[in-house]
């Protein structure tokens, strides 16, 4: 490779720094994986630099003895509901903002952007009071509805940006050949936007899956995983905490691995 004079040293420095960055992120992750599967005896022996005997017992105990599988399931349900609700609400809105000019559009957009910045934990307290009145107290749908406050502005902004990126001509061409506006949307625009929408869905999933404050305030019995861990972690033995950390980290990382290119695009949109 062609290089400027004196560039070799800079390159070495660059790689050195890059390695430090990579280690800074990956080493803690690797260590929680190790601890999650370490045999407790090995873990508690501080004179062993790294536990070398592994077992699935910690994860098993956490999931099935302490019934964390239930809260994991709850978390999945809440995330799924949040995705469904925020897309049902946000998709038409994003489409409307992308395709139409109308009075009040800018105000509405500003409202959405403002909401994106709004500290949603503020909503948690009144939700408890309101949910008691309308019978949503301690329900997963209640948590999902609250999480929607967090994810909706992102879904609107992402979908509107995605739809803006698909020329309206495509839809109009479809309409010229006899599709109704709705058919044109479902058969032309939607398929084109699908990869981006999938990434947005993952984004919402991660938001909801990771959220702890609202979830732990709103649900006392049917807790989600982070809420469950928040409450019980303090009393659990360390190896179980690490198993919990492992279980929480895993799905998000798997999703991100498969959708990383799209996710960067989506993150780019949400912060504009």
């Amino acid at each position, binding site marked *: 490779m062609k290089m400027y004079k004196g560039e070799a040293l800079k390159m070495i420095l*660059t*790689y050195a*720094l*890059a390695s430090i*960055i*990579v280690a800074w*992120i990956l080493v803690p*992750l690797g*260590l*929680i994986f190790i601890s999650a599967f370490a045999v407790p005896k090995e873990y508690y022996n*501080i*004179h*062993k630099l*790294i536990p070398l005997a592994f077992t699935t017992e910690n994860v098993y105990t956490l999931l099935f003895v302490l019934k964390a599988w239930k809260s994991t399931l709850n978390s999945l349900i809440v995330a799924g509901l949040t995705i469904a609700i925020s897309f049902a*609400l946000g998709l*038409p*809105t994003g489409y*409307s*903002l992308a395709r*139409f000019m*109308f009075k009040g*559009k800018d105000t509405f957009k500003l409202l959405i952007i403002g909401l994106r*910045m709004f*500290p949603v*934990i*503020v909503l948690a*307290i*009144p939700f*408890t*009071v309101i949910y008691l009145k309308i019978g949503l107290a301690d329900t997963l749908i209640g948590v999902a*509805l609250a999480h*929607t*406050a967090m994810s909706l502005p992102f879904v609107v902004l992402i979908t509107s940006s995605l739809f803006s990126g698909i020329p309206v001509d495509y839809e109009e061409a479809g309409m010229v050949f006899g599709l109704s*506006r709705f058919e044109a949307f479902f058969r032309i625009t939607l398929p084109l936007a699908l990869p981006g929408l999938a990434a947005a869905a993952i984004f919402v999933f991660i938001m909801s*899956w990771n959220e*702890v*404050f609202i979830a*732990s*305030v709103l649900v*006392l019995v049917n807790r989600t995983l*982070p809420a469950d*861990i*928040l409450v019980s*972690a*303090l009393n659990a033995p*360390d190896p179980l*905490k*690490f198993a*919990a*950390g492992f279980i*929480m*980290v895993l799905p*998000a990382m798997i*999703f*991100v691995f498969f959708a*990383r290119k799209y*996710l960067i695009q989506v993150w*780019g949109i949400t*912060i*504009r």
Partner: protein
Amino acid sequence: MRGKNKIFYHNFLPYLLLLPTGIYMGVFIGYPILETIRLAFTHPYTGEISLYNFQRLSRDFHFWNALKYTFLLAGIVIPIQVTLALGVSLLLLRRFKGSNMVLYIFLIPLTISDVAAALIWYNILTGNGYLNRILINLGLLKSPLHFFGYQYRSMEILAIVITEVWRATAIVFVIIFAGLQMIGKEYLEAADVFGASTYQKFRYIILPMIKPSLQTALIIRTLFAMQIFGVVWILAGRDIPILAGETYYWQIELKNPNVAAAYSLIIACISIFLGFLYIKLLKPEYLER
């Protein structure tokens, strides 16, 4: 009929499509905000409108501590995050083999919750953690370093800071890196041609040009910092009181939604105030019309 249809589309369809979101925002955001205000200004026992909750807070040293620690943590964490994010952005601006991989890896924490991040660092810093293992096995320490527990509060703060930097630098990074990439490369080339040093390029070209992204990053990070909860709660519990933690404590442990609402309201007001402050202070004048 078709003509009517058209008018319908153009006049009502856009609003019809906004309607679900609008209703949601009214019911699930607008109304709860009002409810927060009502709760905060309602006496928890008599049900009358009163300033009781706020008076109660002002006499509570936990409140002042929470305020102090929330700001203290933000004040320590945010500058580190911004510096680190800026550094990594500049590093990744030099495209090198594998720079994309480094980018993805640095973004991983975006997907990790505060609770999980806290557990990840607890794993390293706790008595049996890997830091102590290394230090003890290398013979550098006789007995483990303590990061957790009421009597080690300054170490708890250190642990929280490390965790927050590890977890949430990525969001600052994403914003700054996006801003950096939007700088046309010929602006930097022009600086090169006229003999600017690396530092001069950074100080006089890059920094002023990414001011808008820096502003966004600062606002977002600060607002999140005011809501810091999971990391502190897991690592330090109430040893280090923070605003969101106190909200949780009053709501869940003391079952007093009125005081909790007062806390919420204070978080919201501080957030809004800081947001405006940043926008006013950091507005780049060359974008003004």
